[in-house]
């Protein structure tokens, strides 16, 4: 294709990255792909987009595992905002992510959407103190259609992108269950603590009341409710 300045729109608009159509025309013999940048010339041509504009490849995995966040040795006892906490909350190793007990803001949708164990879900925990701004994704583990309560394991967006999902909209995080391997004080049932969920995207501390505690050879297993961020 041999184009001259007369073939270009003559608007000298700069939207191609060159101040004038004449300058663009000078470049075309050595770099004909630059013609794609002229939005007026290409009005009727749907040009093929290069690699960056193509659909993104699905990553093999989304980041490192939680172990990278729970530092060995020199433990950090401050969250990303510099606030102190008492322990890290890890998830059960056999599960795909942190276990949460949640309640959709309209609990009836648990039944209406026929949420079942194994379903992939997404939603945002509005109402949990300041409300986490992050959209969460996870897989349902237990479902109570009578109360609407769902126990799920939070994963990441990879699974819903691959497998489809049901959208809960807003939900309330009612409780967490997990393992405490690292702590800097004794933990007791009935006491409220600041803690850091190791998989928290924001690395913000949370607080809550421990109402179940079991000592296992591996770690302390806890359930913590009455959650707040901060």
């Amino acid at each position: 294709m041999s184009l001259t300045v007369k073939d270009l729109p003559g608007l000298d608009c700069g939207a191609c990255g060159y101040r004038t159509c004449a300058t663009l025309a000078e470049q075309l013999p050595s770099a004909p792909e630059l013609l794609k940048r002229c939005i007026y010339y290409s009005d009727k041509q749907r040009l093929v987009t290069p690699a960056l504009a193509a659909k993104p490849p699905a990553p093999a995995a989304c980041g490192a595992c939680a172990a990278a966040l729970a530092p060995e040795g020199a433990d950090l006892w401050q969250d990303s905002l510099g606030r102190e906490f008492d322990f890290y909350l890890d998830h059960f190793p056999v599960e795909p992510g942190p276990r949460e007990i949640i309640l959709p803001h309209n609990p009836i949708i648990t039944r209406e959407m026929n949420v079942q164990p194994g379903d992939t879900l997404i939603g945002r925990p509005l109402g949990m103190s300041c409300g986490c701004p992050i959209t969460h994704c996870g897989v349902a583990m237990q479902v109570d259609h009578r109360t609407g309560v769902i126990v799920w394991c939070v994963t990441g967006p990879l699974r819903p992108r691959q497998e489809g999902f049901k959208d809960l909209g807003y939900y309330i995080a009612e409780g967490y269950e997990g393992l405490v391997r690292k702590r800097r004080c004794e933990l007791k049932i009935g006491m409220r603590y600041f803690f850091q969920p190791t998989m928290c995207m924001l690395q913000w501390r949370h607080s809550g009341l421990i109402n179940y505690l079991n000592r296992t050879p591996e770690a302390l297993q806890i359930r913590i409710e009455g959650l707040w961020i901060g």
Partner: protein
Amino acid sequence: MSGRRIYLDNSATTPLDPRVVQAMHPCLESVFGNPSSLHREGREARECLDHARGQVAALLNADPGEIFFTASGTESDNLALTGIIEAHGGQENHLITTGIEHPGVLETCRSLERRGVDVTYLPSDSEGLIDPDELAGAFRPTTRLVSIMTANNVVGTVQPIHELARIAQDHGVPFHTDAVQAAGKIPINVQTQPIGLLSLAAHKIYGPKGVGALFVRAGIQIAPIIHGGGQERGLRSATENIAGIAGFGCAAEIARAEMSGEAARLVKLREHIIERVAVLVPNAYLIGHRHRRLPGHLCLGFAGMEGESIRLLLSLDEAGFAVSTGSACSAHRGHQPSHVLQAMGFDPLRARGSLRVTLGRFNTDADMEAFLRVLTEKVGDLRSIATYPITTTNRGV
């Protein structure tokens, strides 16, 4: 980190150009009259108003008599759509628009639907383009208006507006375009483009907030939606915001004079970011059309992290960079996926995950290098905690 902020959200709004501030200054002090008044103070204000009207008209190659000042781009959209429908009285009315419009158009359409107007929402392709053939097939005998934005505020894609407007013209239907994002950035010439109505806003081109305009081609019948003293030749009553309008005029004149060089400069910055992000940030992808986009407009996605774009925004903000996760008008709707990305075929999760980076007049090469450095770092930080790796062995369900 130094205290310096780098503003990369110029599609949300732009800072005032110092030259605009200078132009507004007399109207905030000495030129205080009401332009409808007959005395000297009123005449001085009228001169400012008329001068600015000419400056804004020149940006579009329009006649000054075809420019009507409003209080915002959104008001201009409301006036265009509702005004055209109102002008047709109680008849059966149909309106054509798209699913990717700004809420200024979409919400007006919904309001009109509640009043019995039929609205067709044209689909968009995955790059944000409207198919002219879809438009051609949507007309009815009762179609009163077509409204399609010139450039999208979320993804930056520029429509083939001339072709779309020509189709409307062929059907004898006025064509309105929301050019709030495009005006002053790419050429618009209403002498050669068959556009009937066009919305503008001053604050997108380094002018003040609270001022907009609607171009209405001579001969198009349109009814007012604000009633009162008959200002703006009866189409938009209310005492004119003279200081704001003077600033708008100055901003329009600067944009027209500097458009070519500024667009070329911004495209170079934009292309540099696209090329470097492709290398530095694995799985980043560009949303919107690769080339048919506003000069300084980037909309990026990060595969596997779409739901966490807000976290990325917060991290960048903390590091001194202002970007957005979509249009500013919807930033408060934390739960809602972008209607634009959904209309482009994105699923609800990916539709929540765009990072909009929009460059402007006051951004420099050094800003881009600093942004690339911090973006790479922050995306890397997020990837390390984003997701528990899902494999067949640890899925546990």
